[in-house]
C-alpha cells in the first residue's frame, strides 16, 4: 500500500469513501509521521492521538454504513489560535499557560461536524504576531524545505508556520490557519503549499483568539488547490455568534476548479514592482502572466496608488486593535499569574512575564497610538488611508478586472535566526504584498508557482473581488496546472 500520508486531502477523502483504507489506518499513518518528524520540525505543540483515534473510529462506523460528511475521516492539524474544547489552546503564548477552553471555535466545530479528525494543535507565532514563526513560546518551526546549497534550517514563514510546515511535510492532510496581514499566504509561499485567506466575514471568528479583529480571517493551508476548495467549504459559514460573519450561501468551491479563464481580466499592479526586488521574483511574476495570457485571459496593467501606505497603516491599525484585544490577559481570569503586592503589580508582572518581546512591542505601539492626544494623528489617519486603499481596489474591480496577480512574497524562505539582529521593520516587509488584501477585506490566495535559484518554493498571489473566492480557485488551478507540484526532499 502507498504511504497514506502522501495522498492529497481529496484522494484521502475519496479513498475512505471507496473503502480502500480506514480512517483509523490513515490517522495512525499521520500519527506515526508526526512522531518521527516533530522533534526536528516542531510543527505540533500538542498531539492528540487518543482523541484522533476515537474520532477516526467514529468516522469508520459512519463510512461503513455509507454515511458521513464532506471530510469524514480526514485528519487535520489545527492552528493553536483556534479554541478546541478541553484541549490546549494558547496562541503559542506563555500567558495562556494551561488554558483549556470550555467551548469549541465555530470553524473547528464545522470541520468536526463534517467528519474531520483532529491530530493536534499546530505551532505559530505568539498571538499570530510574526512572519517567521520565531516568536512562539514553543520555539521556532523548521521549514521542511532546504536550500540546494546549504543544510541550514529555514523558517516556514508565519504566523501560520506550524500549519504550513505540517502540510508540506505530510504531517496532516490539511491545516487550519489564520491571516491578519499575510499569515496564511506568506507561509504557504515559503513551503510550496496553497493558502487561502477568504473575504473578511466568510469564516466565523468566534472562538479564534483575537489579534486584530477588523483584519483577522481564518482559512486553509493545503497541498493543492482542490484541497483548499474542499476545506474552505467546510470552514466557512454564517454564524450568529460573530456579527461580522456574512449571511451568504457557501458555494461548492470545488465546482470552480477546471473552469476556463478565457475572457477573464487579470490586473497587474505596477506598484508591486518594488525597488530591490530579486530578479527571480520578477521572472516568476512574468511567467505567471504568460500562463494567464496563454490560457486566454486578458492581461491589464493597473495602478493601486496607495499600495505603499498599506504596511505603515497596518502597523497602526493592527497594534491598536491588538492592544485592546490583549487587555484581557490580566492574570485573573485565565492562564498565567505572577503575584504582586497589589492588583496593579499583579497585572504588570503577569503581562511582563507572560507576553513575549514582539507581543509587548506591539501592545506598546497600539497603546501609544490610541493614547490621548495621538488618536487622531495616528489611528484616524490610518483608518482614512485604509479607506483609500479599499477604494483603489473598488475602482479597479468596477473597471472590469476579475482578479489581480502579484508575487506573494518579496523573497524565498530565509534562515532561522537570520533576522535576529534586523530591525522590526525588516521583518514586517515580508508582508508588503499581502497586507493590502487584509486592509481591504478581500480574498487572497497563494499558489506555488516555481523554485528560487536555491531550489526553494516561491508563490504567486491572486487577489479577488469580495466573496468571489470561486474565481481564485479557477485561476489558481490554472497556475497549478502550469507550474506543477513542489515537494521537499525528506531529510527529517
Amino acid at each position, binding site marked *: 500500500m502507498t504511504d497514506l500520508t502522501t495522498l492529497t486531502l481529496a484522494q484521502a477523502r475519496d479513498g475512505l469513501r471507496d473503502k480502500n483504507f480506514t480512517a483509523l489506518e490513515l490517522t495512525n499513518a499521520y500519527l506515526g509521521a508526526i512522531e518521527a518528524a516533530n522533534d526536528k520540525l516542531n510543527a505540533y505543540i500538542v498531539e492528540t492521538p487518543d482523541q484522533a483515534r476515537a474520532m477516526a473510529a467514529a468516522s469508520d462506523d459512519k463510512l461503513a454504513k455509507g454515511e458521513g460528511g464532506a471530510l469524514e475521516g480526514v485528519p487535520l492539524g489545527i492552528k493553536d489560535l483556534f479554541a478546541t474544547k478541553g484541549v490546549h489552546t494558547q496562541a503559542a503564548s506563555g500567558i495562556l499557560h494551561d488554558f483549556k477552553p470550555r467551548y469549541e471555535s465555530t470553524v473547528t466545530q464545522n470541520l468536526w461536524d463534517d467528519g474531520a479528525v483532529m491530530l493536534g494543535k499546530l505551532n505559530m507565532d505568539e498571538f499570530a504576531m510574526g512572519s517567521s514563526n520565531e516568536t512562539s513560546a514553543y520555539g521556532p518551526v523548521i521549514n521542511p524545505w532546504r536550500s540546494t546549497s546549504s543544510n541550514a534550517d529555514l523558517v516556514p514563514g508565519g504566523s501560520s508556520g506550524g500549519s504550513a510546515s505540517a502540510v508540506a511535510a505530510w504531517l496532516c492532510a490539511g491545516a487550519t490557519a489564520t491571516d491578519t496581514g499575510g499569515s496564511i499566504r506568506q507561509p504557504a509561499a515559503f513551503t510550496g503549499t496553497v493558502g487561502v485567506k477568504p473575504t473578511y466575514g466568510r469564516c466565523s471568528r468566534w472562538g479564534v483568539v483575537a489579534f486584530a479583529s477588523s483584519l483577522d480571517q481564518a482559512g486553509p493551508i493545503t497541498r493543492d488547490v482542490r484541497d483548499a476548495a474542499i476545506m474552505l467549504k467546510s470552514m466557512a459559514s454564517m454564524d450568529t455568534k460573530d456579527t461580522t460573519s*456574512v449571511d451568504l450561501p457557501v458555494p461548492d468551491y470545488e465546482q470552480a476548479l477546471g473552469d476556463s479563464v478565457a475572457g477573464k481580466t487579470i490586473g497587474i499592479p505596477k506598484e508591486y514592482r518594488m525597488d530591490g526586488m530579486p530578479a527571480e521574483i520578477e521572472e516568476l511574476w512574468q511567467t505567471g502572466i504568460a500562463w494567464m495570457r496563454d490560457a486566454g485571459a486578458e492581461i491589464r496593467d493597473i495602478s493601486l496608488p496607495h499600495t505603499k501606505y498599506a504596511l*505603515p497603516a497596518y502597523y497602526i491599525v493592527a497594534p491598536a486593535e491588538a492592544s485592546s484585544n490583549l487587555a484581557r490577559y490580566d492574570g485573573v481570569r485565565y492562564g498565567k499569574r505572577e*503575584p504582586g503586592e497589589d492588583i496593579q503589580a499583579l497585572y504588570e508582572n503577569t503581562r511582563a512575564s507572560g507576553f513575549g518581546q514582539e507581543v509587548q512591542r506591539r501592545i506598546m*505601539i497600539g*497603546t501609544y497610538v490610541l493614547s490621548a*492626544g495621538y488618536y487622531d494623528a495616528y489611528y*484616524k489617519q490610518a*483608518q482614512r488611508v*485604509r479607506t483609500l486603499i479599499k477604494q483603489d481596489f473598488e475602482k479597479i474591480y468596477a473597471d472590469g478586472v476579475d482578479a489581480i496577480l502579484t508575487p506573494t512574497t518579496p523573497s524565498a524562505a530565509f534562515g532561522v535566526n537570520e533576522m535576529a539582529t534586523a530591525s522590526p*521593520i525588516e521583518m514586517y516587509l515580508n508582508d508588503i504584498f499581502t497586507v493590502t488584501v487584509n486592509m481591504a477585506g478581500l480574498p487572497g490566495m497563494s499558489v506555488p508557482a516555481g523554485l528560487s535559484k536555491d531550489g526553494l518554493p516561491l508563490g504567486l498571489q491572486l487577489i479577488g473581488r469580495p466573496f468571489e473566492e470561486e474565481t481564485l480557485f479557477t485561476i489558481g488551478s490554472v497556475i497549478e496546472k502550469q507550474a506543477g507540484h513542489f515537494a521537499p526532499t525528506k531529510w527529517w
Partner: protein
Amino acid sequence: MSVRHVPEQGLPTLSVDSDTVRRIAHLARIRLEDERIEPMREELNTILAFVEQLDEVDTNGVEPMTSVVATKMRLRTDAVTDGNIADDVVANAPASEDGFFMVPRVVE
C-alpha cells in the same frame, strides 16, 4: 515627554523619550525593567518613523474606515441565550473560590 504637543495637522515628528516609554508601559500594564526602557524606546521610534510616512497622504474629506465589508448589524430577539455556566467561566482561573475570581485585596 519630548513631544510637547501634537500639531493640528499631521503626525508628531519628534520621537518618544524614556519617560513616554514608561508612561505607555504603565498604561499597557506591562512592567518594564530599567534596562529594557532604552531598547524599547529605540524599537518604538523605528516603528513610529516608519508609520510617519502616512502624513504625506492627503486624506481631506476621506471617511475613516469603520467596517471593511458593508454589512448591516444583525439584531436578535432580546432574550437570555446563555448563562448559568459559572463553573465553566472560572474553570481556567489561576485562583477562584465559589464561582468568584480571587485577586489581591483592592478595597481596604
